[in-house]
């Protein structure tokens, strides 16, 4: 019973992290129709910048968090401007941007290697100490992630559904010309979506940096998980992404318990393929 509870809690932590990662990817995909392969690398940059400001600069974790998120936001806007914008309207835009965002990923990872080196680094935890939930012990930092993720996602949902600018993001994603004809500045909206997605990546990276060691490849494994979540949920709505993150996070936690660490990724991919065969638009997607 205690093992089950502990597994459930660790599944919740994974789900919260995956939901945060995937929401940024999903936001960019639904607005621009670009799959941002640099998303994981942006997470890594966020973590490194936070580490530099917090540990090397000695300014503490919160300024580090702000610096990390600010840096990735700016990087996101730059990536959009240099690597996506020149290809808008081209017939092969999706394929071209797969290549350009992959290039961005490689550039960011290699730059991080040069700047920060390959030695493992770690951020201090946001909150020290552990929390025990009827026997299952997790760190307060992980508990914070579990609490923070839904709040951020609710805020994101409120933004895209209730505010004029947030709605314009969705409008551009659904019909660019019709959006432009309402007076929405489409290129600006693209930059905004990319910046916001990158900000979410940076935030996730900083949170991740308190759990895992920070290396230049910090983001590559999470990126694959986030991609699975986004595809699994059905490209599109935030709700579907959150649902898929819960399913994948829980599945991963319980598979590690039963199948072991080695076979878990295999089983998850098998599940993904099965879902795509049975429901090509994803678990929660609409045809």
């Amino acid at each position, binding site marked *: 019973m205690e093992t089950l509870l502990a597994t459930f809690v660790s599944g919740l932590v994974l789900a919260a992290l995956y939901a945060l990662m995937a929401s940024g990817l999903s936001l960019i995909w639904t607005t621009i129709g670009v799959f941002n392969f640099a998303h994981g690398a942006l997470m890594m940059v966020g973590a490194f910048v936070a580490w530099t400001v917090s540990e090397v600069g000695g300014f503490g974790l919160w300024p580090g968090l702000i610096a990390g998120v600010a840096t990735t936001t700016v990087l996101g806007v730059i990536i959009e401007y240099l690597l996506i914008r020149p290809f808008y309207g081209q017939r092969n835009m999706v394929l071209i941007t797969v290549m350009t965002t992959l290039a961005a990923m490689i550039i960011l990872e290699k730059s991080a290697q040069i700047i920060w080196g390959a030695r493992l680094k770690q951020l201090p935890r946001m909150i020290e100490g552990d929390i025990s939930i009827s026997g299952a012990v997790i760190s307060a930092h992980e508990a914070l992630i579990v609490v923070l993720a839904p709040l951020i996602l609710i805020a994101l949902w409120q933004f895209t559904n209730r505010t004029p600018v947030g709605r314009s993001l969705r409008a551009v994603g*659904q019909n660019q010309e019709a959006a432009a004809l309402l007076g929405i500045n489409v290129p600006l909206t693209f930059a905004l979506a990319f910046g916001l997605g990158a900000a979410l990546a940076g935030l996730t990276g900083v949170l991740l940096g308190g759990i895992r060691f920070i290396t230049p490849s910090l983001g590559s494994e999470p990126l694959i998980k986030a991609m699975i979540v986004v595809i699994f949920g059905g490209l599109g709505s935030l709700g579907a992404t959150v649902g898929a993150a819960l399913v994948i996070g829980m599945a991963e936690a319980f598979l590690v318990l039963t199948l072991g660490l080695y076979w878990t990724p295999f089983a998850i991919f098998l599940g993904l393929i099965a879902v795509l065969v049975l429901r090509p638009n994803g678990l929660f997607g609409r045809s």
Partner: protein
Amino acid sequence: MSILRIEGIGGGYGSVTVLRDITLTLETGENLGLFGPNGHGKTTLLRMTSGLMRPSSGTIQFDGRDITGASPSKIVTSGLVHTQQGNTLFGDMGVAETLEMAAFTKRARAGATARLEKVYALFPRLAERRKQKTRTLSGGERQMLSIGSALMCAPRLLVLDEPTLGLSPRLKEELTEALIEISNSVPLMVVEQDVELLLAVTDRQVLVEHGEIVREITATNTPDHAEIVAMYFGAQA
């Protein structure tokens, strides 16, 4: 004073020329209709007017200001609002949400609540379907939402592309009445296949053929039915 002045507009898609040399003026207080066979440049002319396409020659002035090659969002901000043909709008958004969002520019946001009430009064069917997603609307309802959204932009000139395309005669009638009511407060420029509608809604009509304006109809030289049929099918009228 003319509200819209199009002078010598030409251009098309890549190497394909659609418009040759179109010159048009819309005087303040007048509604203009454009008709003619499909594929002869009417939609292209509207797309150039609203900034969706860039003309390769000529100039467009709206309200005395040059808007040639300006971005669609700038043009909407200045008050020229274009409703596209068969606009599918935003499938995953609700009716009320679409209308609220449509008042996007700063100028449109002022007085948006009052305008929303006007749109619902004009199209009561939209009021009944406030919560419904756009993808589930019928063609006629979608057309109403499209025109309603355009009204939410606080237009100073409303440009409509085939507003009754594919609608039943009864819906056409309903929409014609709505357009007449709109024209009381906003000048219209309408592209339409249904010449009856154009005659009911607009004061002056021009025939667009092969990317040129080949004929103008005013109250004093109204053609009869046979002549209009002849214009459509290419015979010399």
